[in-house]
């Protein structure tokens, strides 16, 4: 498989799956401002998905567009990390998952702005502006709830303990990553880890939350070898109309 195609799927499937998860909050947030912010975040992520999967289809050259890739692939062909597949849980869990992803995505996009592939660099430049706001918001909420009441602190610590074991997969590095790094298209994910750890440490200190000691990580999403059980259900819902009415246009 073309490493650039695979790379675009990894970027686009992450934003698609996370955008879907965040959109599930619609109408159910703790305050109206959060309803707006969650819908806005989901909208940004779906917009980024259109760009990444659009480029993936172009690179593949088999006539599949972003919608074909989003709605007509089965779970094993998805390249989303397990972190974004995790269910929303409570509001704190959702925002902590968002923060863990946003901090990684911001670093990744900053590096991609210098990509030798101008299409990749253009998508990154656009997305980076949106993600700068996502990080600011998710970080602020994690800090506020971590350093809030005893109850909110306990819920955020439980969310961090639950989700931290999915962080390592964001930085896994395989032959695809080496190939796109070699071509100057993207950084090696492993090279982003030090900056990520520093940002996370600062945020969690401010949030009075303790980062788990173990760096052990779940993996299997970004290479499609073993997704979570959640992904199949998510795709069942998301792809239903396209699957049930394959000859329709919408």
């Amino acid at each position: 498989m073309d490493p650039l195609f695979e790379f675009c799927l990894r970027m686009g499937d992450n934003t698609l799956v996370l955008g879907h998860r965040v959109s599930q909050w619609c109408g159910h947030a703790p305050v109206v401002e959060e309803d707006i912010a969650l819908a806005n975040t989901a909208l940004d992520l779906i917009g980024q998905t259109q760009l990444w999967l659009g480029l993936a289809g172009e690179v593949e050259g088999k006539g599949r567009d972003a919608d074909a890739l989003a709605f007509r692939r089965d779970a094993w062909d998805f390249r989303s990390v397990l972190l974004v597949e995790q269910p929303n849980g409570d509001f704190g869990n959702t925002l902590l998952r968002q923060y863990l992803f946003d901090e990684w995505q911001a670093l990744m996009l900053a590096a991609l702005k210098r990509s030798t592939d101008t299409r990749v660099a253009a998508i990154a430049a656009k997305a980076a502006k949106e993600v700068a706001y996502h990080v600011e918001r998710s970080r602020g909420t994690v800090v506020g709830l971590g350093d809030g009441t005893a109850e909110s602190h306990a819920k955020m610590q439980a969310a961090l303990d639950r989700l931290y074991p999915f962080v390592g997969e964001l930085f896994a590095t395989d032959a695809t990553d080496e190939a796109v790094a070699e071509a100057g298209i993207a950084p090696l994910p492993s090279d982003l880890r030090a900056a990520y750890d520093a940002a996370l440490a600062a945020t969690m200190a401010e949030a009075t939350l303790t980062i788990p000691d173990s760096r052990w990580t779940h993996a299997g999403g970004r290479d499609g070898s073993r997704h979570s059980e959640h992904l199949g259900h998510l795709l069942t819902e998301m792809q239903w109309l396209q699957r049930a009415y394959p000859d329709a246009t919408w």
Partner: protein
Amino acid sequence: MYAQMVKSTGLGVKSRDEMSPEEARFQDRIDAGDKIEPKDWMPEGYRATLIRQIAQHAHSEVVGQLPEGNWITRAPTLERKAILLAKVQDEAGHGLYLYCAAETLGVSRDELTEALLSGEMKYSSIFNYPTLSWADIGAVGWLVDGAAIMNQVPLQRTSYGPYSRAMIRICKEESFHQRQGFDIMMKMANGTEAQRRMAQDAVNRFWYPSLMMFGPSDKDSVHSAQSMAWKIKINTNDELRQKFVDQTVPQAHYLGLTIPDEALAFNEDTGHWDYSEPDWSEFYAVLKGNGPCNDERMAARKTAWDDGQWVRDGLLAHAEKRAHRTAAE
């Protein structure tokens, strides 16, 4: 607008002789087309009626996220999903402007939310109907937002300044919503057999509930006169309903869809479409809480509010800690 059956004073419109000097001056300002601003003197009945009306509209925007949110995760393309997300985000934003407008009248957003959740305050009957197919998202945009716009456009000229200004912003976005709804209906109506079936089924289910959005017939609308004298309400329910029918019937014909009303006919004498009244007993049943989705909508809002308590408490506690730390520095 999504305000129906908003109670006014219940006392009828006062004649000039019955008005106090303050009330007479106030009415003069209204009649001259002045905007009333938050710090200006106003009759208590004006204030209370406005709070009920603006809050009912705000609650409708917030509850209205639910039937549309029902299809975000199943939207058939990425573009449709993005458009629907943008629309629902706008609606939550409308809720926010309107709560802010209500707050200028001396009531807090939390009080209004509690009043919604206790059932003391209402939201539009239309959001108690389910969205069952993708065509319903088109029908909600085309018919429901179309009906809302009929009410909202004149309310840009309403007498209360903050409400009027909120309505001006809202109208700009609502017309985009209606267009996206019509665009979905065009695709469906010109699509496959199954899509046409979905489109017709959506019109069948949403036509009469949309007509109900304007509220009961003028002869049964007991609170309208005072609200119209105060320019809180600009047109009567029947005027707006007729305008909506006149606008919508040709659009349905263009789509090749049938309005589920055998009595529908163009009246050459009046220049308007004659149509059948909705079943008002259904309308009153829905307002009482017996619509298809009343329980689910209220349960969803109550859960969101209750489950969000720790979040609101946590963020508030953090803000206080920060303020305290800043003060100590």
